[in-house]
């Protein structure tokens, strides 16, 4: 029998717990609001940066005038710069940053490993090879993108097919990773082969430049190309995101908790591959985002995918658009984005590893 005092004490403990929980919930809500704010700010600031400088008040003026159909008070050059050059580039950077972060975050849960990045099943090297082949065969820009996208999907399909042949039902995840490594290496060798065969005066520089990754020639068409696969890839992941938590406990436990693991795994792989292949096909190989952004987001909002996925989406889009701002405005000559993301990403990752709270990596 509990004494009255004990009961009162228990009650007090309970209210205290509820209060602490609410407080914690509130903190994560604040963090999400701040992330939204940072992303919007990054979006707006990016318009002002670049060779042709435009002030933030001008930008807001133009947006508001356009929105309410007021008459134009700015020059045609400004209009062209904003609407034909900067908007597509900024939107593409944000979409790609978000897409790569999402697929990285999902793969880390799926493969129960925080060291996994979106190219683990061969999507990037497949897409890279698709682009190289298209450049070698003198396809146009759209041809290069389509070929790259399809080869990206194809590489992952190949990985999936081979690993299902190998079987080993009880070790499906490990077999997938190993096959992915093999397929990745295979397509990387194919890329080297196309470089070797390419005409060193015209094709080889084009291939090399494409592989470095960048958004320097992004047009509205590219943004539209990105929009469909990224939307199709993002929506199911957003809907299923809580279940990815369960998947990160391993196949057997997830099954015993009632999840059809092979189906969920397939859906996550298809969606993540759509995101990665679409990104690589438009901007080339841009590394590190899918690895570090989920880490950074996990440090901010915790490991629960319910919050982690939206946070990764926001942080990823803000991060890539800001890095792209640096790429296009730091030096007179634009730095390839892929090089810059690695240059910033690698030391930043070390910083996260050093600073990271124990267990948050």
């Amino acid at each position, binding site marked *: 029998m509990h004494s009255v005092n004990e009961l009162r004490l228990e009650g007090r*403990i*309970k209210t205290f*717990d509820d209060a*602490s*929980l609410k407080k*914690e919930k509130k903190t994560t809500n604040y963090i999400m609001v701040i992330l939204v704010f940072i992303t919007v700010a990054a979006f707006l600031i990016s318009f002002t940066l670049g060779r042709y400088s435009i002030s933030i008040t001008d930008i807001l003026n133009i947006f508001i005038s356009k929105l309410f159909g007021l008459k134009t008070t700015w020059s045609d050059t400004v209009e062209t710069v904003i609407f034909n050059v900067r908007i597509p580039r900024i939107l593409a950077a944000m979409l790609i940053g978000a897409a790569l972060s999402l697929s990285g975050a999902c793969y*880390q*849960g799926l493969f*129960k*490993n*925080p060291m996994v990045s979106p190219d683990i099943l061969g999507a990037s090297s497949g897409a890279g090879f698709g682009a190289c082949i298209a450049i070698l065969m003198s396809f146009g820009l759209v041809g290069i993108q389509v070929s790259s996208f399809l080869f990206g999907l194809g590489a992952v399909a190949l990985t999936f097919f081979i690993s299902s042949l190998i079987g080993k039902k*009880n070790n499906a995840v490990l077999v997938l990773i190993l096959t992915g490594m093999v397929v990745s290496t295979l397509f990387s060798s194919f890329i080297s082969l196309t470089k070797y065969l390419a005409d060193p005066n015209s094709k080889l520089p084009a291939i090399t430049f494409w592989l470095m990754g960048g958004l320097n020639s992004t047009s509205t068409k590219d943004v539209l190309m990105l929009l469909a696969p990224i939307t199709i890839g993002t929506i199911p992941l957003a*809907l*299923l*995101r*809580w*279940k990815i*938590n*369960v998947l*990160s*406990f*391993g196949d*057997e*436990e*997830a*099954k*015993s*908790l*009632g*999840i*059809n693991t092979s189906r969920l795994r397939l859906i996550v792989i298809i969606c993540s591959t759509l995101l990665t292949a679409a990104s690589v096909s438009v901007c080339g190989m841009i590394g590190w985002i899918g690895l570090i952004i989920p880490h950074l987001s*996990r440090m901010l909002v*915790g*490991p*629960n995918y*319910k919050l982690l996925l939206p946070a990764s989406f926001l942080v990823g889009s803000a991060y890539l658009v800001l890095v792209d701002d640096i790429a296009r405005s730091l030096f007179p000559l634009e730095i390839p984005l892929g090089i810059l993301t690695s240059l910033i990403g690698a030391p930043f990752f070390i910083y996260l590893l050093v600073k990271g709270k*124990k*267990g*948050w990596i």
Partner: protein
Amino acid sequence: MKLDIIRATCGYGKKKVAENISLSVQSGEVLCLLGPNGVGKTTLFKSILGFLRLMDGEIVLNGENMIKMSKSKLAKVVGYVPQAHTPPFPYTVLDVVLMGRTAHLGMFSSPTDNDRRIAEEALDTLGISFLKDKIYTEISGGERQMTLIARALTQEPDILIMDEPTSNLDFGNQIRVLERINMLSKKGLAVIMTSHFPNHVFLCSTKVALMTKNLFKVGSVDEIVTEENLRSAYGINVKITSTVDESGNIIKACIPLIN
């Protein structure tokens, strides 16, 4: 609630690991599976949980063939408590326990306040509410084992299947886990567990299955846990002795002898 395993043969691929196994468990019973390493206890467990296909025989749950049940239907009846382990991400204990609700949620849903309440009740039942906001990867092995039991309870199952729930725990935590198992079986749960400690059988089991390379015996504790059976199963000499607790109950214990 009743689980029947009827002449089951289980194994990997074409390799038979355990043959012709029959047993049944019902509400309120605790069946403990004893046996030396490598006789197929884990394989049998994996078959009961549906991770492995039976090579022969069948498993019947409340009159329904278990193989035909969907994963989520199964998860509402059978709760699995794996050995405590470390997941890759630092979830809070409440997050981990809430994952027990998976089978009760729709395809695209995440836990609601009601699910949260059920999870908190499970923590309360086991007396570990204070762990709620702790980080699962940072608590002790015993606390982690308790958390996994709470997660299984959150599934609201009729049967708990526990894989060596007392291994890797200190002396006190072993007994505390056994106390909880007793309490849960009194509440009407059926429990199947494996153990490497014959003494634990005396403390909480109503039924024992002894599994050796070529023998499978099921029966009451006194029938199965005998000096002779333990000697033949584990290949060591064992004496069974007994003592009386404060309320006059006789408690048996095995003492291994070193030659």
